[in-house]
């Protein structure tokens, strides 16, 4: 395994409730790269995101995943989070009664503590979050509400981006973050991602549509079909897909 890779997925097979969802998927991501994963419904896009984030129901049956040179599959979801993996959910869950700000501070400090840092006090944390709210054009009243409880689709996605900006991941996985967003929200979210782009941080942008990639320019585009990557290319591949649909891929493969 080469040490300059952030993520090295080798021939991974995975299943959910006996159903095979990934069938020998390989993908390499270097620090600072933005990879887009596209593909038709049921191709395994969300499965890939969930496998990387460590969801229990997704069992890896074969293959290896190295993250920062470490065996990712040995790590619990929270350990992955502590080491810099972040997944923005396609459908963020509602947790009634749990204050949004409190939740974020718990997550933020859990990561800091796991990395041997002092937890951040309430006040400076509040200031930090409020500033990020501004960047995301979010009303700070959000912070007082229960986590995702009664949020609109767009509000939930902004809230995911807020957490991403707070947690400053090494590898951010955006699982169909663009689904159900209007154009304004799409712009705000893309700006958030672009503001975080640097030479160290990598993104895996899972999307169904090319539209998001107008705003977030990927270095690589991969087409996922039937549980594996069947075609890879640069940003132009996304445009080609948009034009021709996914059917021709299946024919080609």
């Amino acid at each position, binding site marked *: 395994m080469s040490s300059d890779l952030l993520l090295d997925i080798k021939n991974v097979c995975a299943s959910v409730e006996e159903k095979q969802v990934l069938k020998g998927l390989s993908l390499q991501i270097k620090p600072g790269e933005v990879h887009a994963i596209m593909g038709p419904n049921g191709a395994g896009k969300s499965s890939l995101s969930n496998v990387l984030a460590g969801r229990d129901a997704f069992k890896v049956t074969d293959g290896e995943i190295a993250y920062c040179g470490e065996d990712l599959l040995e790590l619990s979801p*929270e350990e992955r989070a502590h080491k810099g993996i972040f*997944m923005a959910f396609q459908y963020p869950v509602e947790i009634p009664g749990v204050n949004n700000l409190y939740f974020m501070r*718990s997550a933020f400090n859990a990561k800091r503590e796991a990395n041997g840092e002092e937890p951040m006090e309430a006040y400076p944390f509040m200031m930090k979050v409020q500033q990020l709210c501004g960047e995301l054009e979010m009303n700070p009243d959000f912070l007082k509400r229960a986590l995702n409880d009664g949020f609109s689709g767009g509000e939930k996605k902004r809230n995911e981006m807020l957490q991403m900006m707070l947690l400053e991941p090494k590898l951010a996985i955006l699982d169909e973050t663009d689904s159900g967003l209007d154009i304004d929200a799409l712009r705000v979210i893309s700006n958030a991602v672009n503001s975080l782009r640097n030479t160290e941080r990598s993104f895996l942008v899972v999307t169904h549509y090319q539209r998001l990639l107008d705003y977030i320019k990927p270095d690589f585009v991969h087409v996922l079909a039937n549980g594996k990557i069947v075609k890879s290319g640069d940003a132009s591949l996304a445009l080609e897909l948009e034009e021709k649909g996914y059917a021709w891929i299946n024919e080609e493969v």
Partner: protein
Amino acid sequence: MAGPHCLVSIYSCGIMRPEKNLLIKEVGVAKRHDPSIDSFVSKRYEHGFVTDIESEQFAAGLSEDVVRAISAKKNEPEFLLEWRLEAYRHWLTLTPPDWAHLKMSPIDFQAISYFAAPKSNANAPKSLDEVDPKLLETYEKLGVPLHERARLAGVAVDAVFDSVSVATTFKDKLEEVGVIFCPFSEAAQKHPELIKQYLGKVVPYRDNFFAALNSAVFSDGSFVYIPKGVRSPLELSTYFRINAANTGQFERTLIVAEEGSYVSYLEGCTAPMRDENQLHAAVVELIAKTDAEIKYSTVQNWYPGDEEGRGGIYNFVTKRGSCEGDRSKISWTQIETGSAITWKYPSCILRGDDSVGEFYSVALTNNHQQADTGTKMIHIGKRTKSVIISKGISAGQAQNAYRGLVRIAPTAVKARNYSQCDSLLIGDRCGAHTFPYMEVSESTAQVEHEATTSKIGEDQLFYCQSRGLSEEDAVSMIVNGFCKEVFKKLPMEFALEAQNLLAVSLEGSVG
């Protein structure tokens, strides 16, 4: 020093932080568990030990002689003995209720000993110095350093060890304003006229099987009297602990709040581990006169039985308050996490016009625990109001039932009730049941009922974990979020305690 989930640990925690939410993190004990949502590994009951104190205990069995003996032990006035005997004779005509959503084998009431007192209490101690050091040691083990607790907390404590009160503090401060707060047995001697006037007025011995039994054999309990216009300068608190094997405990609590007075009363308990089922049948009576307010909070953590459902306390409680005067108010707040079986319906009779009854409850059952709990709000006076917020949490193979009655009498013009009953399930082998009863006989009344049932989803847990929180912290956070409306009603330090208790009770409930 103080254990992580004894009621008192809060006082040794020092400064309370203003942001309540921040506290949750500290009580969720981080620990990794075998990842399977079905593996319910219950935490061993931490308060499980039996103190080696010679109990003065009656042989098992119940008869008129036993009732007389209990009364004699306590040097009770004649009227009280007569009352006990009437209750006993009535009890003989009753059979245990079977309508609750509970599975249990019949209780052999002749196999129970009806009196146990720590022997060292034969010459009642005047101060803590005179208390058997072993008793104090027990408190220490439970994390209840009585002297320190009293000093730190400013809480008057009438500690009930087994059936006899052994120490009462802060009496002077209460006496200054005329508040009476003492063991029931003491009140029977010093204030017989008050006992005679109020005992059994809210919960008559004819009320139900367990109330009749309690009335016949009650061992001790607390008596509180708040004179007209007085706000109790202290939160009153009583600890009930059960410490003698095979001894049922029959507490009797009576609180009378005179016109325009206010009192907040806190009750909490832990008990040693043992194999036999223990019967507990308490009676609590509250009386609020015109413009008076009584706030009664309970944190109940009795031994729930082991992971297989062996042992544990049977808790059959009759709690009822009477809002006698206009604009009076009674609030019940309960956090129920213990006992193998809980049968308990703190109720309010709203007689006075504009009187208010409230019931805020969190009932958590894990492993094989069963709870059938709820409230009754009886609206009689005009414009009476009641609020019911019930949060039931089930894990393991536990069964949790809410049972509530809202009755609007024809006299209760413009009465209002709001009920909300939410159930949270953890895992797929537990059950939640809601039995709301409504009897409305007044056309201007407004009665609202809302109910929800939800599961702690794998998706909620995963979401939290993917943000870096441990599974235990995540469960604790979700459950505390679910209970928030009720915790808000507890005094600040008890809210922390309640969160603490829930975290401990649920440890390992989601693998």
